[in-house]
């Protein structure tokens, strides 16, 4: 399957879905899924191949090149799979909302541009697909009006700033090396001074950092995720965030060879240390902010920011083990985070729009399958063994500890501790606890939503038990970057200082489970106490009174909240206010009085003449 055919058919398909939508809604839904299936099949057929193809040379005689290599293959496959599940999920979710054709067209356009970014072989096509992704995401974020408009505005302004920084970076690379194609640049970049490389890195750091929501640049993510329609937030936080990661890997490992990157800049101000520090901060602060969130999607959004921190740690560390840890964590995070968003989306769909954790509860009886999917997703998020999160986190911890950076390891562990807390809050508030009266007649999630959820939970398990599958492909990509691959086998990783074999862990857990089950069966049964006879002195206690999943972690919140105001957010709103005031101030120049305007003209003339009289400039 040639690359440009894949992209052309994909784009044509998305256009067709839009037009078909005008005719029949059913046909459009099916076509959307077909297009995505075609894309997934196309990408899987490209497994292991490395090929390039020039797409278009009309643009100011810069060639637009497409190229596939194992590293890009992982990203493309993840995007396609998550996109497919999201579109299937949104069949029912979007039906009763307005402008459905627009939604499907934009959804397919976002996925198309992401795959385009991942497959692009030169900076020009990379930038063009990047911009198309930006403005189609903008249109999707502001899709359901109301608060979404402010979120969309914040997103588009930051992404325009980011892409401009990237444009400048890419063109200065062009002036330095004379070409925009990645191979050409990496080939002739070794002559560049380290100062120039740092300048380029800073520019690209801003562009990818905004997309990757690294700590100071993450401000747009929480409002964008919580306001966007759920299927799209699944794609948004599952995969779209990771395009920044793809950019980082491409830049650090693909273009500026990793050895150069590691010892770039003198001891103190070393770009790698800066990135690691920011990764650590990105893990810490958002995790604890996530604790306070009462809106399910906002909680998940903050958790995405936190998990991105892990990935940045993995990538910025520079060893092959850390890279594979980071990439694997990206892969796993995409799976379980989109799963979690789908769970919340299903709940939201059924309770038509309720996302407030305090008013949900006890849905385990009504939506068992969603509960199981949510549980598995949360386990993946925390990194419980037998789920894929465990393997990638282990790899990251292993590299941090083995390579003597205790501070980062401590931060990572603290982060995981926080993750456990807010994940439990999520599961508990939605599924456990007392079922409020108004949800008595709640049905389970519809089939079209259950299928993607079940599929994603299976993948979380399969890659948890058999991490070898993704790791093998990651090894292939590391070979591409010229780094020595990890020693892996189907069940896990074997390294000099400790290895993990999922086979042993799985058997141990299963045996433990059986033993536990036996104890439970034979042990004394506890009696079932009727709810009514309790300490309320016989007065009937309304069921809602038992609703105790309200304001979880309140004491912890009161303790930490004062220190964790979101400094970055205040900074940006202050910046926006500053620009608006400056605008109003400068507007005052045009006073409306013609005398002043004539004075300005003569002033301009006098200044020019004065320059000549005084300094004999010319």
């Amino acid at each position, binding site marked *: 399957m040639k690359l440009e055919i894949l992209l052309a058919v994909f784009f044509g398909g998305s256009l067709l879905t839009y037009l078909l939508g005008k005719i029949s809604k059913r046909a459009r839904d099916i076509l959307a899924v077909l297009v995505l299936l075609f894309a997934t099949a196309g990408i899987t057929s490209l497994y292991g191949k490395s090929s390039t193809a020039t797409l278009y040379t009309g643009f100011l005689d810069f060639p637009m090149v497409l190229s596939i290599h194992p590293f890009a293959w992982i990203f493309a496959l993840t995007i396609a799979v998550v996109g497919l599940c999201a579109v299937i999920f949104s069949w029912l979710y979007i039906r009763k909302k307005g402008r459905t054709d627009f939604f499907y067209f934009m959804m397919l356009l976002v996925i198309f541009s992401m795959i385009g970014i991942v497959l692009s072989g030169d900076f020009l096509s990379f930038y063009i697909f990047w911009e198309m992704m930006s403005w189609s995401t903008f249109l999707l974020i502001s899709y359901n009006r109301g608060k979404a408009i402010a979120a969309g505005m914040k997103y588009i302004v930051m992404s325009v700033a980011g892409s401009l920084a990237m444009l400048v970076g890419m063109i200065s690379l062009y002036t330095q090396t004379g070409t925009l194609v990645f191979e050409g640049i990496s080939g002739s970049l070794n002559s560049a001074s380290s100062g120039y490389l740092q300048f380029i890195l800073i520019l690209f750091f801003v562009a990818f950092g905004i997309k990757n929501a690294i700590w100071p640049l993450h401000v747009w993510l929480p409002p964008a995720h919580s306001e966007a329609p759920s299927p799209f937030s699944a794609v948004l936080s599952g995969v779209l965030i990771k395009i920044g990661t793809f950019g980082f890997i491409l830049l650090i490992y693909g273009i500026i060879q990793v050895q150069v990157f590691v010892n770039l800049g003198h001891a103190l101000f070393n770009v790698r240390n800066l990135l690691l520090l920011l990764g650590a901060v990105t893990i810490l602060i958002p995790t604890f902010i996530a604790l306070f969130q009462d809106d399910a999607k906002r909680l998940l959004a903050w958790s995405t920011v936190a998990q991105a921190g892990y990935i940045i740690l993995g990538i910025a560390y520079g060893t092959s083990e850390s890279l594979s840890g980071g990439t694997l964590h990206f892969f796993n995070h995409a799976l379980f985070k989109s799963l979690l968003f789908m769970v919340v989306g299903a709940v939201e769909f059924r309770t038509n729009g309720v996302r407030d954790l305090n008013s949900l509860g006890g849905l385990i009886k009504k939506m068992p399958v969603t509960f199981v999917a949510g549980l598995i997703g949360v386990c993946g998020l925390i990194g419980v063994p037998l789920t894929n999160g465990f393997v990638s986190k282990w790899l990251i911890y292993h590299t941090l500890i083995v390579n003597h950076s205790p501070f980062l390891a401590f931060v990572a562990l603290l982060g995981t501790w926080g993750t456990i807390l807010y994940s439990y809050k999520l599961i508990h508030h939605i599924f456990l606890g007392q079922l409020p009266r108004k949800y008595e007649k709640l049905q389970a999630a519809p089939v079209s939503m259950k299928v993607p959820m079940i599929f994603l939970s299976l993948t979380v398990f399969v890659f948890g038990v058999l991490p070898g599958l993704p790791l093998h492909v990651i090894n292939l990509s590391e070979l591409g970057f010229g780094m020595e691959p990890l020693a892996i086998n189907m069940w896990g990783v074997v390294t000099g200082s400790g290895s993990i074999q999922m086979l042993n862990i799985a058997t141990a857990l299963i045996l433990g489970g059986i033993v536990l089950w036996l104890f439970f069966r034979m042990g004394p049964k506890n009696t079932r106490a009727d709810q009514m006879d309790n300490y309320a002195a016989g007065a009937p206690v309304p069921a809602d009174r038992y609703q105790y999943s309200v304001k979880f972690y309140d004491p912890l919140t009161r303790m930490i909240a004062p220190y964790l105001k979101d400094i970055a957010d205040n900074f940006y709103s202050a910046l926006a206010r500053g620009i608006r005031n400056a605008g109003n101030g400068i507007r005052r120049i045009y006073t409306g009085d013609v005398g002043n305007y004539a004075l300005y*003209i003569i002033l301009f003339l006098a200044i020019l003449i004065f320059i*000549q009289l005084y300094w004999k400039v010319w």
Partner: protein
Amino acid sequence: MVNPVLFIVVPLGLAFAIPLLKYISKKIIRFVPALAFLFNLVFALRLIPVVMDHPVHVHIGGFIPPMGINLVAGPVGMLFVVLIALVGFLVSVYAFHPVKEKYEDRYHILYMLQLTGATGVVLTGDIFNLFVFFEILCLASYSLVAYLGNRAGIESAVKYLIQGSLGSGLILIGIGLLYGQFGTLNMADIAGRIHSVQPVSVYVPLVLFITGFGVEAALFPLNAWLPDAHSSAPTTISAVLSGIAIEVGLYAVLRVVFTLFGISNMMGFFLVLGVLTLLIGELCAFSQDNIKRMLAFSSIGQIGLLVFAFSLASTQGITGGFFQLASHTLGKALLFLAAGYMITRTGSMEIASFKGMGKTMPFTSLAFTIGAFSMVGLPPFMGFPGKFMILKAALHDGQMLTLILLGFILIATVIEGAYFFRVVQVLYFAGDDLPDRERAPAAFSRLVPIFLFTGLIIVLGIYPSLITDLLDASALELLDRPGFIKSIIP
């Protein structure tokens, strides 16, 4: 191979003929401007291949250049003639719908004279002739700004007139000084003799020209007239003013700076002036809530960007500048036409009143969005190659000052993105309480130009190499001063 003088004479003749045509039939008057500029467009396009290798020189009255007036139809001139004819033709098609019932013929005459003046400024090779055509352009613009006769129109026209004629007076003094110094009025002749005189004595005329033409080209301190004039003029006129009049003013400044005086050490000043204009234009536009005023301030911003691009004084910079100029002309004309058409529907110019226009006028709002995206410089549209080339030239230039100014340009572009996307959001996503505007039958004559502009913006965005060779030739003509002089004064 048509004689370039006809590009000025045919529209002028038709303008003179309109009062007589009125006796024959009132209705055909609307089609006369469209006919004139179609003629210009077709023959200008046919002339471009000829002009690409050698500029066409026309001697008025048969006298050789230093004695008589000559027209220089070089690549720069022809680029502008094509732009003027294209925008003129499409806007006149837009104006088939009667702007104001009475005085229909006067509107069309003034409109044709305005564009004839612009074509004259662009083609002439003699500074006094440049002044006369510049005056025609300004005078027609003053009357057209006041055309609607409402309170805002008259006030803006008076202010525009006072500033404009102050500028023209300064230009006239400059011409007097140059004639006193060199005894000739032909641009190439003066350019040849400039370096025979020690520079101090030639500095004052240069400054007078920059100020005089700068008023029309909307450089920073001189552009106080632009927001009022563009927001109170009729739609078609603000489209022409923003699309053509400022660019022609900028052309005049360029011709003075590059060809006439050929100075190089003032470039730093122009770089700073351009970025200052850009920042102020974008900041003021950010805090506007009247859509035409916002577009007017964004024109000021874009002119600042153009001045920055041209003052890089490298072939790449000037080619990028010309491309961005063409994209601004087409983009801004599209934005004003689309906004104007929507204003006729909403009744008020406030951005808030455009809520939910995405549903009632889907095609126009789509066109407006494409125009806005092109202005911000998003890839598939024409703004992107323009900004791309300017950034390439600036980075190629590499001095510290240029890089700092580049930072400011990026900030300004982000601000520009902010206020354009705000309008797009109001169009499509604002408010569920849609005012119940039924979808009136769209006036065909108003949608055709909007579609053609959008098509052009997309095609040139995807395949910019279509016009880059013409732009390279014009950049060469501007920079290669001795070649220009030798081609006119053998």
